[in-house]
């Protein structure tokens, strides 16, 4: 059973990988030359971010976007630390207090959006920073009115331990996949590391959903459901800090995946709906299929690992450790002939395809690629298992509707 699933997963994965890579030969999204820079509001929702908010604001002030056209709105969402005072010392920044009403940061973003004067507005988390050209570049991707949102290409700022190290690899991968999705117009994500929206449009669509765990995903899916496009701005590089502990990573992922499940249900009518083109008929079904396959592979692998471990221990016990005697070493011919191609081949394909995609991803966002690192090893072997546990927990929490907080 397990090798049937392995072959299906690796076959579909290989075709998809080649398909994605094929897209690299096509031009990326059309960009326009902006003659007159528009007014842009950047909304930064903050909740106990005294350590990072200063750098976030400074990165905006250091950007090459004209200061008279850049409005920075910091929305303090009931911080109990020194965040308020840190922000207060900056001049020409709008600082407002928001009473936490919703379950996500949407309430804070909406508070900022209500007073935003810019033709466009961006959402920037307080643990993120923009590059010098990020804002200028991201606006060039609004090449037509149908584009409702453009997201930046983010990199990891704090790559210090295993947790952040594997996320650095993952983020490179994510940026590349989102770029591919953008090219075939199936992108349905926005994020807090600078996503820029048309102000009027989002107000018209009813602001951000304040009862949603992942309001950034929800708004992008809402835009898609209304026929708008979401684009990826590869030339707009931004930086973010990622969770550096197991607990933080766990909480973040469970929240993301709960949000995904929630929004998938909310916009289920899009799936296999001809009206939504590749987004509804290819991208969403593919993501659901991948999720099911991930679950199936996880269950089957766990079963196989436990079964083999049990047999191995039993073997040691029944053979009284004679299993380790040198005389039992198999010959090279025997090793070759007992290769189980049914398992080995799809596993090799999965590893090769992922390695190549990873290499490409690092090249695309101009990050250094290091082979054979511990992080890479963990990313390939441990992270998928951890991800599966995140999904299972998210699913469990969604079914039993446990409390939702950001």
């Amino acid at each position, binding site marked *: 059973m397990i090798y049937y699933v392995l072959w299906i997963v690796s076959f579909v994965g290989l075709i998809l990988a080649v398909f994605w890579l094929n897209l690299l030969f096509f031009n990326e999204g059309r960009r326009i030359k902006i003659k007159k820079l528009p007014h842009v509001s950047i909304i930064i929702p903050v909740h106990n971010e005294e350590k990072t908010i200063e750098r976030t604001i400074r990165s905006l002030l250091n950007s090459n976007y004209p200061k008279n056209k850049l409005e920075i709105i910091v929305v303090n969402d009931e911080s109990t630390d020194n965040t308020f005072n840190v922000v207060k010392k900056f001049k020409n920044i709008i600082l407002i207090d928001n009473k936490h009403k919703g379950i996500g940061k949407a309430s804070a973003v909406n508070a900022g959006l209500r007073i935003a004067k810019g033709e466009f507005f961006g959402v920037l988390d307080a643990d993120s920073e923009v590059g010098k050209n990020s804002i200028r570049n991201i606006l060039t991707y609004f090449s037509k009115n149908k584009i409702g949102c453009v997201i930046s290409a983010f990199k990891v700022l704090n790559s210090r331990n295993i947790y952040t190290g594997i996320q650095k690899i993952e983020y490179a991968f994510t940026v590349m996949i989102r770029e591919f999705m953008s090219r075939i117009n199936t992108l349905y994500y926005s994020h807090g590391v600078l996503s820029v929206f048309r102000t009027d449009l989002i107000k018209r669509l009813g602001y951000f959903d304040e009862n949603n765990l992942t309001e950034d995903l929800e708004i992008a899916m809402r835009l898609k459901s209304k026929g708008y496009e979401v684009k990826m701005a590869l030339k707009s590089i931004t930086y973010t800090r990622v969770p550096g502990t197991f607990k933080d990573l766990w909480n973040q992922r469970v929240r993301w995946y709960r949000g995904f499940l929630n929004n998938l249900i909310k916009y289920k009518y899009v799936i296999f709906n001809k009206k939504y083109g590749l987004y509804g008929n290819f991208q969403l079904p593919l993501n659901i299929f991948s999720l099911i396959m991930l679950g199936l592979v996880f269950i089957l692998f766990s079963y196989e690992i436990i079964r083999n471990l049990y047999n191995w221990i039993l073997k040691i016990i029944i053979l009284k450790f*004679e299993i380790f005697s040198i005389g039992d070493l198999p010959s090279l011919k025997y090793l*070759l*002939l007992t290769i*189980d191609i*049914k398992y080995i081949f799809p596993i090799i394909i999965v590893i090769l395809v992922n390695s190549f995609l990873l290499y490409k991803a690092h090249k695309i966002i101009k990050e250094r690629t290091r082979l054979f690192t511990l992080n890479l090893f963990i990313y390939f072997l441990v992270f998928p298992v951890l991800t599966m546990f995140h999904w299972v927990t998210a699913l469990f929490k969604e079914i039993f509707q446990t409390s939702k907080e950001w």
Partner: protein
Amino acid sequence: MVKKKNLTKAFFVSFIIGTLIFSLGLFLGYGLDVLRIKDASTSISDIELETLNYITSNEFIDVFGGNHCDLVNSELEGLSVQLFEIGQTLVKYEKRNIFSGTEYKLLKSKYFLLEVRAYTLFTKLKNQCDSDYDLILYFYDQNQDDSENQGYILDKLVKSDNVTIFSFDRDFEIISFLINRYDIKKSPTIIINEDIKFEGITYLGELREAVNQ
């Protein structure tokens, strides 16, 4: 945005490339299958020759006279180890097979019949010469963990004790006469010297105790 025509083309190209790479995998699998079948056939032919040698010598003595017990020598011990190992290898190879199911069934049938002939001869020699070697019949199910573990135990036994093991896949119709005679109902089942029967996984200690009786 990428045009629909280009997308279809990209998807078609990807499908072709993916299929080609996977065909390579299947081809590799087929190649390994061929090598495994060849290896198993060679091993069975070798053992067949040795067994035939004993059977022929026995028939010769039957007709022209001589001492049957001369056939019981150290080479017989080597033969018993080989017989068991080929059985184990066949099981391993068959589990990894992709395309050659029928060939394995044929090879295994041939191997089981060869074992039955050897078992008949060895039982005759043991009784005639009052030899102290032990004859073990082992019935397994190749998709069962207990049978696999029993295989490891017997592998140890055959290498350390003066025993000859004849292993049989109980799902093979060709050995139904053995299944009926020994009333085999579950796997693994072990019959020692036509006398002691063990059902379910049996540990080394128990087996050693039984063969030393």
